[in-house]
């Protein structure tokens, strides 16, 4: 189905309800849908399960936490080892007000891929013998110990790409891909913020990174300046 183009990021979020599981693409400053994140903040959606690589490292996701919109997070980095300057998320986490499932980054990516690709689980050596193995099935095969990891899906995915065509094909620039292409496959409703929307056919078939089949909604936005200062 052809993607629907929305006028504003706020309108593009129509229908997201309290309690939603929301995946957000991006890695620190790269490929992060900051306009959609701020629209989700303005929307005031509560009790969100946030599925994102990082929270509070040069992204706008901590602003959602500021308003206590996030109840549970699944992430690969969200809490610093040192607490010199706490994010809202970290403060709430240390006070036990928000739940966090920390996932190794490769396992995080692969679980989302499994969720989008009809894979019911996969075996990885990553995390075997660590806290990550707690509660998971462990199998020995080929002389090694493997964890059985399960797929991860969401109700909504918020993505950032560089360009889209009207059909919904996406292309990314530089290191802007990261988790965006895989999250596009693993949510019931997929919304992408892009810098430019072009006519269908204007992105060469070989240059399409995310095929149109995965994209439900598009909104054109100027990218927000986002930078992590390293702390």
């Amino acid at each position: 189905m052809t993607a629907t183009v929305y006028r504003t990021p706020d309108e593009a979020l129509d229908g997201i309800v309290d309690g939603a599981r929301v995946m957000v693409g991006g890695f620190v400053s790269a490929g992060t849908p900051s306009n959609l994140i701020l629209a989700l903040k303005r929307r005031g959606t509560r009790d969100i399960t946030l599925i994102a690589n990082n929270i509070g490292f040069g992204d706008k996701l901590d602003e959602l936490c500021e308003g206590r919109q996030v109840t549970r997070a699944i992430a690969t980095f969200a809490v610093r080892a040192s607490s010199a300057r706490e994010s809202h998320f970290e403060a709430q986490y240390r006070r036990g007000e928000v739940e966090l499932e920390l996932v190794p980054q490769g396992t995080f990516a692969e679980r989302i891929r499994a969720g989008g690709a009809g894979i019911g689980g996969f075996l990885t050596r990553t995390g075997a013998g660590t806290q990550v193995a707690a509660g998971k099935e462990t199998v020995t095969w080929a002389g090694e110990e493997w964890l059985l990891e399960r797929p991860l899906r969401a109700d909504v995915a918020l993505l950032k790409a560089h360009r889209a065509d009207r059909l919904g094909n996406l292309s990314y620039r530089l290191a802007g891909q990261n988790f965006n292409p895989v999250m596009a496959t693993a949510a019931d409703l997929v919304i992408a913020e892009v810098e430019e929307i072009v006519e269908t056919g204007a992105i060469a078939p070989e240059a399409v990174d995310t095929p149109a089949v995965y994209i439900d909604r598009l909104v054109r936005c100027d990218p927000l300046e986002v930078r992590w200062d390293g702390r």
Partner: protein
Amino acid sequence: MDAEGPPRLTRELVAMRVAQELPPGSVVNLGVGLPTLVGAFMPPDAGILLQAENGILGYGGFSNEAFDPDLINAGGQPVRLNPGASFFDSTASFAMVRGGHIDVAVLGGLQVSERGDLANWSVPERGGGSIGGAMDLATGARQLIVAMEHTTKTGAARIVRKCAYPLTARRCVDLIVTDLAVVEVVAAGLTLREIAPGWTPEAVAALTEAPLTVAADVREIAL
């Protein structure tokens, strides 16, 4: 000279020593913190390809140009690209990491045990820590070098019999490069290969909880 002995190596010198370990043409992932410094000391014509797990193969040094939010390494720092660089998504990046296609990973460490277990992501008493790509890198890289300070700020050994902090991966470390020593992890335990100028094997061993076998040809770290 600190209270415990001759001067220790600076972070930059530790990074220089690590850089010597990188074979020409190898594919290398540098973790955040001290390992990031290694990039500045790589031999220019060795054809080493740096991989950033956020989806770059072939990045170069830090960029001084206008900040581009889409061109960062896994530590969020702006980087330049070398000719022949490529971009890919996170599933492809960790397929590369997990599948054994990274020749050397250099990670920071909190503790390394005598059998090569690594703990580098969490200090429980501080109530935090994050995993990021460390567990996949420690498990998947063909060779793992840990670059860290030999002791904590309070003087406690970081090279220990058994890690007290939460593990990153078991039996994963091949080489430890600290501000005092180069220690190799072998089947039998830990071998002290090199020591910082002015230090003796005995002085290094005194700051190391795990037993060290002093190599017959132990020598001073040369840079």
